[in-house]
Each structure stands twice: as C-alpha cells, then as structure tokens.
C-alpha cells in the first residue's frame, strides 16, 4: 500500500473541470497529472474513490522512480479516452493479442527498464500495459534455447544434475 500524505489544496487544484492528481515517486519527485489520464489505472481510480469518500485530497506516493512513473504516464496519456480491450475485465486470456505498433516503439527500452515498467504497471493495475510488457518480454525469449534465455536475462543455471533431468521436480531444496 502506498503512503498517503495530506496535500495543501494550493498544490493540487481540486474542484474544477480538470481535476489534477499529485503523484510522488520513490525519488521524491512530485508529478501533477490529470486524473482522467490516470483513470486507466485501477489502483489510482480506487485511490480517487477514496478521496471522494473522505472529501480530502491527497498525494499518492508510489514505490518507483520518476523515470518509470513518467513512462507510465506517457502510456496513459497516449491512450487517454481510448477503449483498450485488454483493460476489460472480460478480456480474452493474456497473450492472445499482438503488441500494438505504438506499444512496440514505446517499449523499445533496455531490458531493466522494461522490467521496471511491467512491475509499475502491475502495481498500478494497468492490465493493458502489463499485457504489452509481458508480450514484449515473451517475444524476447521466443524461439530461444534455454541457454540463450539465460544469457538474455542474466539467469544462472541453478539446477542440480538430478533436477535438470527431471521435468517434474519442484526444486524445493
């Protein structure tokens, strides 16, 4: 759960046609964003509902850096007002739809950044972004051998010889 701090009304204009939110990143950067843009995030939407219930406006502290947060905001801004199938609770199972062309360019970042974005999207409950990131990561390892996958993601082969030849081993040791 994020820490919620009270915010001075002068910092965040509250009532009005364009309602603003104050998001605070883990590196303590304050980012003001229109509520409408972030409505794709179920997490943010729930926070905003909470504000309305208590008639108090707060900043929302988020556990990732401003760099990552800005990327997420960029994504949400691009799809502002769009209906995305994957955000639908009744959407098809994950992985069944291709990565949108814009998303492909948007996610053309280094591997670590991609992992940070998917984690942030998961935290913010943005299903469409989680899905696009997951498909992008899946594309990275598709068709690769296990050794190649390990190299791409920097994973060590930590199987014992016995586990390596036993596909059903649960590796609890």
């Amino acid at each position, binding site marked *: 759960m994020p820490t919620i701090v009270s915010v001075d009304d002068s910092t965040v204009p509250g009532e009005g046609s364009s309602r603003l939110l104050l998001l605070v990143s883990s590196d303590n950067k304050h980012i003001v964003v229109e509520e409408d843009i972030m409505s794709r995030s179920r997490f943010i939407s729930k926070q905003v509902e909470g504000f309305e219930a208590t008639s108090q406006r707060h900043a929302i502290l988020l556990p990732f850096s401003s760099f990552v947060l800005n990327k997420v905001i960029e994504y949400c801004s691009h799809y502002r*007002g*769009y*209906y*995305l*199938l994957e955000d639908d609770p009744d959407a*098809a*199972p*994950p*992985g*069944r*739809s*291709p990565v*949108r*062309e*814009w998303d492909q360019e948007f996610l053309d970042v280094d*591997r*670590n950044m991609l*992992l*940070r974005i*998917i*984690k942030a999207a*998961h935290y913010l409950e943005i299903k469409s972004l*989680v*899905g696009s990131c*997951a*498909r992008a*990561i*899946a*594309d990275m*390892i*598709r*068709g*690769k*051998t*296990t050794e190649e*996958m*390990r190299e791409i*993601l*920097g*994973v*060590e*082969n*930590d*199987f*014992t*010889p016995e*586990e*390596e030849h036993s*596909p*059903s*081993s*649960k*590796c*609890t*040791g």
Partner: protein
Amino acid sequence: MADAALPADEFSSLWSEFARSCIASLADVSARSDDRSIADAREVIEQELFGQILAACLLKSRLNELIPIARLPAEILCHIFSCCAYAEPVHRGSDLYCPSPEKRLGWMKVTHVCRSWREVALDSSALWETVPFVLGARWTEELLSRSRPVPITAIIYRSSKSWTLPLSNHLSHIKVLDVDNQCEDHDAGFLFLPAPVLEEFRWERGLDRGRGGQPQSVLSGDTLPYLFAAHAPVLAHILLINCSEFKWAWPSLNSLVHLEIRNRDSNATAVRTVSQRDLSLALKGMPHLESLILYHSLPRPTEPTPGDNPVELPNLSHLSLTASVARCLSLIRHISVPNGVKRIHIKCYNIDPDNHTVSSVERSRLLPQLIDHVKLFRNPKISDLHTALIESGGTYDVRLMAWTFFAPDAHPVLPIDDQLPDIDIYFLCYPSLGNDAGIPNVPSIVLQTLPLHSLRVLSITDLSTWTENTWLLHFGLSIHVEHLLIEVSLLPSLVKALSKPLPPPAAEEPDTEQSEQVEVQLFPQLRSVEVGPREESESPGDVGLDLAAVSGDEGDTVSTLRGLADRRLDVVRLPLFSNRRTREQRMCHNLGSGPEMESLWRLPTAIQRWRRVVQ
C-alpha cells in the same frame, strides 16, 4: 559482505584450503592402498563433490534472486509464460520438421531455465490447461498431472499414437476434446467413457478415410448411442468432420447448444443411408439447440406423415444447411423454428447423392416450396431471392447467400460484429460485376432482381476490379445502406464513387421550377465500412490484404483513407497483415507510419473515431 570483497586469488585459495580440510582424513590413502580403503575414500570424495555441486547450485540460486527479473512477482512471470505459451506452442508436427528435442517443447522450455521459473510455472495449473498429446506417454502423463485439478483442453493430432491410455485415465477432467484423428479408430475407446465435465467435442477424420475399403468410423450408427457412456451432462458443442458413416443415433444430449456436422462431399454414406426420421428423432433429444449447421450431411428426404409433429427447437438462432433443395426442404418441413431466429443460411446445389443431377425443372418445382417454408421466418426479401436463384441457374456459378435479419428496429449501429448483412452477395466465378469484357454479365442480371433499394447492410465478395461506375451503376438506388462489408480490392473504387455525385435520375419532363438539383451521393446514410477478408485464415500473410499494394503506394493509401475520413463514418475496419489477430484488434495504424499517415490519424474525423473504437 567483507568476505565477498576479498581479492579473487585469495578467495580461491581459501576455498581450496577448505576443500583440502574436508578430505584431510584421506591423506594416507593412495592408489597402492587396499581396495576397501580406496573404495571408501572415493565415496567420501564423491560425497564432497556432490556437496560442492549442491553448494554451487545454492549460490547460483542466490545470484538469481538478485537479478532484475527476480523483482517480478510470480503472477507477472506466469503472465509472461502464458504469452510464451501462445507465441510458441508445443511442436505438433512430425519430428522430421523439428529435429531439436528442446524446440519440440515450445514454451515449456521456460521450466528448464532455472529453479525459480520452474517452480512458478509448475505451481500455475492454468498454464497447463491445454495438453497436446504429442510428446510421448511420459510427457503426456507429466503434463496431465501438472494440470490437475483444472479441467483441461486435450488436443490430439494425427501423429500422436500413444495417447489412448492417458486420455482414458483423464477423460473425467477434460473440458475440451479436440481430435484430429488420422490414427486408427480402434484406439478411440475413450469415446465411450463418461465425460462429466466435457463441454466441447471436435472430431475430425482424415479425408481419405471412411470411404470404400476403409475401416468403419468408430462413430457409427452402432456405437453412437454409447458416446461418452451417455454421460456428458455439460456437453454443449459438437463438431464432427468427415464422419461419413455417421448415423443419427445420438444419445439424448439435453445440454447441447451447437451441433455442426461437415462432410467434404455430398456423397457421404450417411447422406445416402440415413432417413429424415432418424434426424428428427435425434433432434428431439437436443431441445436446447441454438445452432444447427449441417454441411453435406442432411439425410434422405421424406414427406412428413400426418402423425408427425415437427421437432420443436425453441432456442434455435442459427440454422445453416448445405444440401440439395429436396433435402433442405425435407428438414425445414420436419422442424419448428422460432420466428426470432437470427440467421438462416441455406445453400442449395444441383447434385443430389440419390438423383445425381437435379434437373432445373425439378429445382424450379422444389424451390418455391422451400421458400414458402422459409417464409415462416417472415423475411419478405426471400421471394426476391427465389427469382435470383432461378436466374442464376445457367452456365455461370453464381452463389447467393441470403442472410435473414429480424427485429430491424433493434438493429444496432455498433458493434459491427453483431451485424448480419441483409443479403450477402458472393460471386465465385467470372464474369463478375467489375468485368467490362462485354460477355453476358449474369451477376449483374441477378443483382437487378434483388431488392437493393431496401438494403441496410450490404456485403460483397468479388475479386474482380471495380471502377467507381460499377458502384454507381448497381447501387445508386441503395440509399438506405448503412453498413458495408467489402473486399479490400473494392475499397479504392468505393472511395472514388463516394466522392462523386450520383447521376440525376432521367426525368420525362424537365421540372423548370426545380432547376437546381440537390447533389445526391452514393450511400448517403453510410455509417460504417468493414474491409475484408472476413474469414480468418490459418496461413500467415493470408489474413489481410495490403491496401497499399491495392492502391499503388502509400500516397494513394492516404488519399483513400482521407476520402473515407471525409465521409465522417462512424467506423472503418481494415484487415491486418499477419495471423493471430482477431477482428477486434484490426487497427488502422498497421497500414503505415510515415508522416502522412501520422497526420491522417490526427484528423478530427472518422479515422480517429475508428481508431478509438477498433482498438
């Protein structure tokens, strides 16, 4: 942390010292020692080695906990794995085409990467919902055990011969059974075991089987009553393909909502031997049927006897028949279809297995009867279609598919997928509408007999080249058309036609008071255009057609799309250019990404709206 900061050589010598200390007690043992001492020493050293391997694995696991991907929760990893499962399924073809055993595993390779990935994957039974029976008995058993207790989809392909035993043991938790059966039918004993959670059953036999000299299909008139031991309480969908000895001796299937039987030709044994009475009896056991599709599988026609009540199918919404006129008529007479049926598709052909070729006289006699019965479905256009069918009985193979659509008041504008065309015109052969070669244009003649003026939804499949005049000539009076479904090759000519005013109707006496004619455009009420092909294909590259290729270059593509934008349509849908993409995901920006296209997307017109809806 201080240890980790030791210089590498110092650290290495520290471990060497430690290893030596572990076996210090063996210092006196040498190759000249007695056998017992040597064996004991070897055992101790091997234990030490094994311990060090385990220690190394432990350290590597610890390293794996510190890499970036380890930050992801198991839920996201599962999500990634499910994407992998879709993108890289288990290899289902012959081993010849996939020599690497590892590649045959497809996405399941992720369980071989590291311990944590294996644990995450094995803990998610949802990942193992689909079990392909192609990796041999050991793997199949392993996959089945991973999927428990989730009901699974079992896929059996032609080369899988070792599936019988595990399938028999697991039928109790199979929800979808998809069998492409080129194997010996006698292996299919599982078909007669109870299937308590089975929801869908698809059974396809090879094309060359089930004919003369071939063994009888396991699904025959004798065995069908025992299908799934007559215990498949939630079985809702059945699709049988090429079961030519199939007979209509079904067990009672109360839960069935979709029945589809397809033979590749009209000469199937069952078509010749089964009677309409058998079919009626079978349908009585399927009272909840919503969809009935019979393709070259209608039985011999019989006249209803006075005591015969038509079979009530109160939930039927989709009826699709492909057979001779007599057989279609016979079925229609024996069933009672509700007025609210949404989709009726009857395709009659001239060849009947009993009579060989149906004469045009016979066809002309039976067609009105068929149409009279179909009129029960209250579609006034069907009589016009009758005329069209008669007209098309000449040299040319012109197939007209009539889609009836009811409750026009409830006709929604969106989504387009729910739309059914009033008349689906499908021209198979040339000459077609766009052909200006001067030979008799039968499709054009047929078209004139259709009630084009009252159409609201129009679907056209014609691969010939159209000009704007083709549109203006044939559809100038179709002023009520709101939705168009067309081939991509027709789009450029359509856009040109849309931009032109219709020629004024020829007036007998010029009206001097109305000297200023109001410009009328083609399809003035048009609201959406969907560009085909509408059927998804399994072949990559065969799904969509390249509009840029049709138009010439990207500049033409832009002008074509801009022409559509100018019409302020609600929705325009275009095909994609690769497989695995559903209609819902057809997106316009697949067409190009140059600056001109980008500027197009920024237009405050239909294009943006379409982009917004379609994604």
